[in-house]
């Protein structure tokens, strides 16, 4: 029997296939289409301290083999989230990982604190990539190793749960940020988040998103995500959750071989809501066909 188990921080996942935040709700929305217990983990939609309405419409635009989104972190705020969404987590055995976003560094600490005793929350994914209003000139935390380190430490201090820090590929040198997060106590890194992009409607000469700029995701960014994973795999010791354009088994395998210990499917869920479970099966078949026992043998097996 092939062993698909992987360890991410304190979590022992039954397989390496997770969902990417913001593309799977809490899983409750898709219960009828797939068995959540077949997944390695469910990473839920990003939550912030206060409720957020999100951005005006249009919030998405299709691009060649990709899409831009500027949802704007629409969510009910952490308190309502804990009350309304978290009880659902108890209905499944799969670990639920909550994705947290802050507009100020200290908010991350508060979010971790509030989630610490919530039953069913297995871990935190720390999204440092949301555009920050109080931060200088449209910069985001993810581009500043100091900010990433401080945020990671704050979260680490307030939780015993597994802490995954999610990095942006929109950076001169992702290795520096990855090291900052590792040194500050992250259990794992997830990469990549979306890359900011623009699309123009040539008829109206308006941006195709109300927010002008949005985040690019989907197969278009896969080579960039893979390169980031490979660079970071050669830099840090903690496990990596690879994502960016994973739609099928081949894509997932590429990420594992490039250095990811687990993978997450994002935009792929929109195209095929059952893609995650298909990928679990596909990886199993690949291991068998290649005479490999453990999925962890694939991680970083790139022949260079």
């Amino acid at each position, binding site marked *: 029997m092939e062993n698909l188990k992987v360890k991410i921080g304190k979590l022992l996942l039954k397989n390496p296939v997770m969902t990417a935040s913001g593309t799977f709700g809490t899983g409750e929305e898709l219960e009828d289409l797939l068995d959540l217990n077949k997944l390695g983990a469910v990473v839920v939609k990003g939550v912030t301290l206060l409720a957020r309405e*999100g951005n005006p419409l249009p919030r998405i635009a299709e691009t060649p083999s990709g899409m831009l989104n500027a949802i704007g972190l629409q969510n009910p705020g952490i308190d309502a989230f804990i009350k309304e969404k978290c009880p659902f987590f108890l209905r499944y055995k799969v670990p639920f990982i909550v994705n947290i976003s802050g507009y100020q560094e200290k908010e991350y600490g508060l979010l971790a604190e509030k989630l610490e005793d919530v039953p069913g929350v297995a871990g935190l994914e720390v999204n440092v990539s949301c555009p920050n209003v109080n931060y200088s000139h449209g910069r985001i935390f993810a581009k500043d190793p100091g900010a990433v380190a401080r945020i990671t430490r704050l979260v680490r201090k307030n939780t015993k749960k597994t802490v995954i820090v999610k990095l942006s590929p929109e950076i001169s040198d992702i290795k520096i940020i990855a090291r900052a997060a590792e040194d500050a106590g992250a259990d794992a890194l997830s990469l990549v988040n979306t890359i900011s992009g623009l699309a123009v409607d040539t008829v109206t000469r308006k941006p195709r998103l109300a927010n002008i700029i949005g985040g690019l995701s989907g197969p278009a960014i896969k080579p960039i995500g893979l390169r980031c994973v490979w660079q970071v795999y050669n830099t840090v010791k903690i496990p990596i959750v690879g994502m960016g354009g994973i739609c099928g088994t081949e894509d997932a395998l590429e990420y594992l071989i490039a250095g990811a210990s687990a993978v997450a499917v994002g*935009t792929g869920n929109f*195209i095929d809501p059952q893609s995650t479970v298909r990928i679990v099966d596909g990886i199993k078949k690949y291991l068998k066909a290649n005479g490999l026992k453990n999925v962890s043998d694939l991680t970083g097996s790139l022949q260079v």
Partner: protein
Amino acid sequence: MRIDTNARIIYNKQVSGEYRNMKIYAPRIARHARPGQFLNIQTSKTGRPLLRRPMSIHKLSPAGLEILYKVRGTGTSLLAQLKKGMEIQVLGPLGKGFDIKAPFTTAILVGGGYGISPLKALHDLLKKKRKKIITLIGAKNSKLIYKKGFTGVKVATEDGSSGTKGLVTRVLDRVCCSGAKHPAVIFACGPDRMLEAVAKIAGKYNIPCQVSLEALMGCGTGVCLSCVCKKKDGRQARVCVDGPVFKAGEIEWKT
């Protein structure tokens, strides 16, 4: 119960004006589908376009589903090229359909452009239930009018190339004044501006009204939050799962 299935195309043909009509064999979806619900269709196997395309269910039979569509861009062009016997990946039925539980005797259907599509499935169900049906169809010009199989049809075109010249909502206003004796319900589908005008008229005559909204959709399954609309109570609803059909009175119109 939503099902994602590879459905065989029974036909895919040009019908009147600018519309095409595709029938697919998808009994498992058809079994659960209701008028007003929609499908999310993969238009290409190459991964481009990336996202599926939402299409209303136009007609329903035990094993078959039909859509009525207009070629607008890449996705619908690719749909138009598919031939009988080919297969397409279809997810459905999606969203909440029209609600016909309330007691009423007359249904006023108002369709703008391809908004007429889901009203046909509703029409067929209402006919079985022996409701009186008035169908108001509006569009820019006669090429965008599709009225096959509807009962009690009145047409309005903006350029006057067919039926009354002007907006379909003006016709609705007149129909409502006169037809107000019987308990009636308005069911409308079309562009936002039309739906807003319909909602206003319905409010004026105090006739219950359901509108089917359209929105750019990333997932069609409620997870991406790209399709939200504002409700009067200040909350946001997702058109793909909380709609596409809403009570007209609930919607906070943009203007």
